[in-house]
């Protein structure tokens, strides 16, 4: 698998991780990003994943992945053990996204965070005109089944980063699987990726 085959938010992250660095991928799923990072950027990648079946897939492809819950298990990693802590489309599932952000910036010198933007115009339109919790391409699961318990917008995230004293190094926004510019991202972006430091 190569960068171009990754989900757009993961491709943006993969393209900007410095080769040879140490990375913790939190909620690494089947390890697609880790595999690309190890193969193409000589990155020393570690993963944390809740689902045993996903961990099994990762182990089978030779990746170092620990089964565990990011809400509780990040505490076991030493300070600044990684150059990057990566949290892709997992922030909105955390029991306390604010504390999760603290942990990311504790274990990693830098962090990449990606999430679906709840203020995308489709989501707003679905709520405004439908009057029901939005089900969109980016958020396809009904409100009672979704793991996304803390919906977040681009502007909310910027505000959280500010409150936490985290510096936004760079950001990328995506709509229709393509990168779009930053202007009016809170309205136009389906997904966002932020690179943070503290």
């Amino acid at each position, binding site marked *: 698998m190569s960068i171009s085959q990754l989900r757009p938010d993961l491709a943006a992250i993969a393209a900007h991780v410095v080769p040879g660095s140490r990375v913790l991928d939190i909620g690494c799923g089947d390890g697609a990003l880790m595999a690309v990072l190890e193969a193409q950027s000589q990155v020393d990648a570690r993963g944390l994943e809740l689902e*045993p079946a996903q961990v*099994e897939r990762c*182990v*089978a492809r*030779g990746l170092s992945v*620990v*089964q*565990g819950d990011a809400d509780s298990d990040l505490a*076991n*990693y030493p300070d600044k053990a990684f150059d990057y802590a990566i949290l892709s489309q997992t922030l909105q599932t955390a029991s306390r996204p604010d504390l999760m952000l603290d942990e990311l910036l504790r274990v990693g010198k830098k962090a990449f965070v990606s999430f679906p933007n709840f203020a995308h115009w489709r989501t707003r339109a679905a709520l405004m005109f439908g009057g029901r919790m939005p089900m969109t391409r980016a958020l396809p699961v009904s409100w009672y089944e979704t793991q996304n318990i803390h919906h977040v917008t681009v502007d909310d995230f910027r505000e959280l980063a500010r409150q936490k004293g985290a510096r936004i190094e760079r950001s990328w926004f995506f709509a229709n699987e393509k990168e779009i510019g930053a202007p009016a991202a809170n309205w136009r972006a389906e997904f966002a990726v932020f690179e943070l430091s503290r």
Partner: protein
Amino acid sequence: MAASPASKALALDHDLPLDSGQSLSGVEIAYESYGELAEDKSNVVLICHALTGDQYVASAHPITGKPGWWERMVGPRKPIDTDRFHVICANVIGSCMGSTGPASEASDGAPYAMRFPVITIRDMVRGLVALLDGLGIERVHTVVGGSMGGMQALSLAANWPERAERVLVIASTARHSAQNIAFHEVGRQAIMADPAWKDGDYYASGPSPDNGLAVARMAAHITYLSEEGLTEKFGRRLQNRDTKSFGFDADFQVESYLRYQGSGFTQRFDANSYLYITRAMDYFDLAEEHGGKLADVFAGATSRFCLVSFDTDWLYPTAESRHIVHALNAAGAKVSFVELSAPNGHDSFLLEHEQLDRVVKGFLE
């Protein structure tokens, strides 16, 4: 106890130093191997056996005639593929299947019995390392073990980190808990309370302490199973009868099963070996050996680790594996961990489990 079975054996040309400060001379290590050894010796998988296991991991047991204890895992095209790997499994010292143990002859020609020195898990691994040395194998592709075998794999990684490229630890622990020690003590006391034990001096004449050993096995066997598994398998069903006997026969199926397990065990295992090996497990505390902090044990480790636990294992529960994983993380080691779901408690590592097969196969890739 039958006579020593005919395995390959390596006689060490040096004394084996022990953690107790004593040393053991004239040591023999009995082992089995499967699959071709690559010319550069790069394809060795060392399998470490559990408390009552032996070297017959993938071939018939010479006394019982039963298939190897991990035949479902080890063999041609199995997860540990003997078409590809050269698999070595040795009987640990202290045991009774050909490696030097309490039933072996001491220098005076009589069995050691209780004169055999108390050994540790690290001493067992010293024996394994000596075997590798004797076979000219500097570094194994993978060391793998379940239960006490996992302790040996951890001990090898901690004390001889350059000897294993990958370390696979299944249903194991970095230390014996009070509960673990307690169950073992019940077993030891059962053996020592058997009049036939005679302070361990039963080899020359008279019966072996089979009753005590059988009780020890029965108590231990309970810890290998889950309550759910026992309930499913036996419930309160009666054994070959319609009503309770109002006596002390094995009325219940579970009683009959345990008695069968106990008496079967005495045919293939030596009571003194059971004392020595359980003691070694009770003494096991990897952190204590290294100044008290488990993360320090693995400082600078370059091996890749994989740990697997089972959700119904209450002997070495998932928390024990996680404890090791956290230490490896803190040391910056490459580690994978997964808790698998299985109904059969600690014994799950020996039973059919497709996910375990895929993890083992994948980790060895």
